[in-house]
C-alpha cells in the first residue's frame, strides 16, 4: 500500500517535471462521493479499453487523454473545495409524500389532508417547484388494469391540486400500477395501504 502510494507520488512528480511537452493533454478526474445519508453507490469508469469500479467514499481516478486511469488520492475536503460551486448548484433532493383516498371516493382521508399541508410547505421552500403525482394500486387485477387505475388515481389527484391553486403546467401525473407496493403482498390481494398516491416535489 505504502509502496503503491510512493509509486503514485513518483508518477505525479514525474508528470509535474515534464510540462515541456507542447501537446496539451486534457486530463479528467472522476470521484464517487457519499450522499447526504452517507450511502455510497458505484460508478463504472470505462476508458482505454479497461473498466474500473469506483465504490468507496471519495474513491477517484485521474484519466489521461490516452485513456489510462490511475487512482488519485484525494481527501474529502479537497474534492469539496474543487467542486464547491458545482456541488452548490445541485438542485434540492426531491421530497416524497404519500396520500390516501377514502375508499371509493375522491376525498382524502383526514391524515392525508394534514399531509397535503406539508406538500404546500415544501412547495414554498423551492424555487420553481414541479410535482410528479404517481398513482399506485394493490395487486387485485392484471397489470394493464392496474396501470390504468393508478394513472386515473394520479390524474384525479392532479386535478385536485390544480383546484388548490397549483399551475397545471407544473404537475405531471404517472401510474406505476402494482409495480411498487408499499406493503409486499401476493398477487390478487386487496390492501388499502397499497392504494395510494405519491407526490414527489422537486
Amino acid at each position: 500500500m505504502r509502496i503503491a502510494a510512493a509509486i503514485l507520488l513518483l508518477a505525479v512528480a514525474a508528470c509535474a517535471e515534464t510540462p515541456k511537452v507542447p501537446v496539451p493533454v486534457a486530463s479528467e478526474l472522476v470521484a464517487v462521493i457519499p450522499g447526504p445519508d452517507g450511502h455510497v453507490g458505484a460508478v463504472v469508469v470505462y476508458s482505454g479499453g479497461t473498466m474500473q469500479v469506483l465504490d468507496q467514499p471519495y474513491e477517484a481516478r485521474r484519466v489521461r487523454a490516452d485513456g489510462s486511469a490511475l487512482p488519485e488520492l484525494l481527501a474529502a475536503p479537497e474534492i469539496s473545495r474543487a467542486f464547491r460551486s458545482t456541488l452548490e448548484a445541485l438542485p434540492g433532493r426531491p421530497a416524497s409524500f404519500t396520500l390516501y383516498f377514502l375508499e371509493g371516493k375522491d376525498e382524502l382521508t383526514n391524515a392525508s389532508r394534514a399531509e397535503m399541508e406539508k406538500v404546500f410547505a415544501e412547495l414554498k421552500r423551492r424555487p420553481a417547484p414541479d410535482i410528479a403525482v404517481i398513482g399506485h394500486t394493490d395487486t387485485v387485477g392484471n397489470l394493464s388494469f392496474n396501470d390504468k387505475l393508478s394513472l386515473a388515481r394520479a390524474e384525479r389527484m392532479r386535478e385536485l391540486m390544480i383546484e388548490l391553486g397549483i399551475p397545471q403546467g407544473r404537475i405531471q401525473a404517472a401510474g406505476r400500477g402494482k409495480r411498487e407496493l408499499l406493503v409486499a403482498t401476493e398477487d390478487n390481494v386487496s390492501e388499502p395501504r397499497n392504494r395510494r398516491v405519491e407526490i414527489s416535489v422537486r
Partner: protein
Amino acid sequence: MRKLWIFVSALVFAASAAANDIGQIKVAKGDVQVERSGARVAATVGMPVRATDVVVTGANGSAGITFSDNSLVSVGPNSVFAIDKYRFDTTTHAGEFEGSLRKGKLAAVSGKMVRQSPESMKIRTPSSVMAVRGTEFVVQVDEPAAAPAAAR
C-alpha cells in the same frame, strides 16, 4: 365507448407533451445558456429542459437540473454539458440517459431509472464513459489550455 376513446387520446396527447420536457433548470447562477436547435438562450430557473439541449456556463456560471426520473445534474463554471439522449418511462421506470461533459465540472445524483436498471445513466467525457450504478459523483474535464493549473 366514444367517451373512452376521447379519454385515451387525451392521455396520449398529454404523454407526448410531457415527453418533450425531460427536466427543469432549478438553479442558474451567473452566465448560463441553453443551446437548443442551433439557438442559444439564457437559462432561467423553471425553464424546461429537452433531450439534445446543451448547457453552457461562463466563468461565473453554474446550473442545476432536475430530470423527470429525479436524477440531478449540476455543472460548474466554464462547462459544456450536452444531453445526448434521454428517455424515461414513468410507468415501468425503464429508460436511458446519456450526457456528455465536454469540459468543465459536473456533479450528478442518479435517479429512478438507475434504480430500475443500473448503468442506464452514462456520462461521457472526451476520453472515458462513466456508467452509473446508483450514486453521487463528480467529474472534471480539464481544459487543455489550462493544463498546468488544473493538472496540478
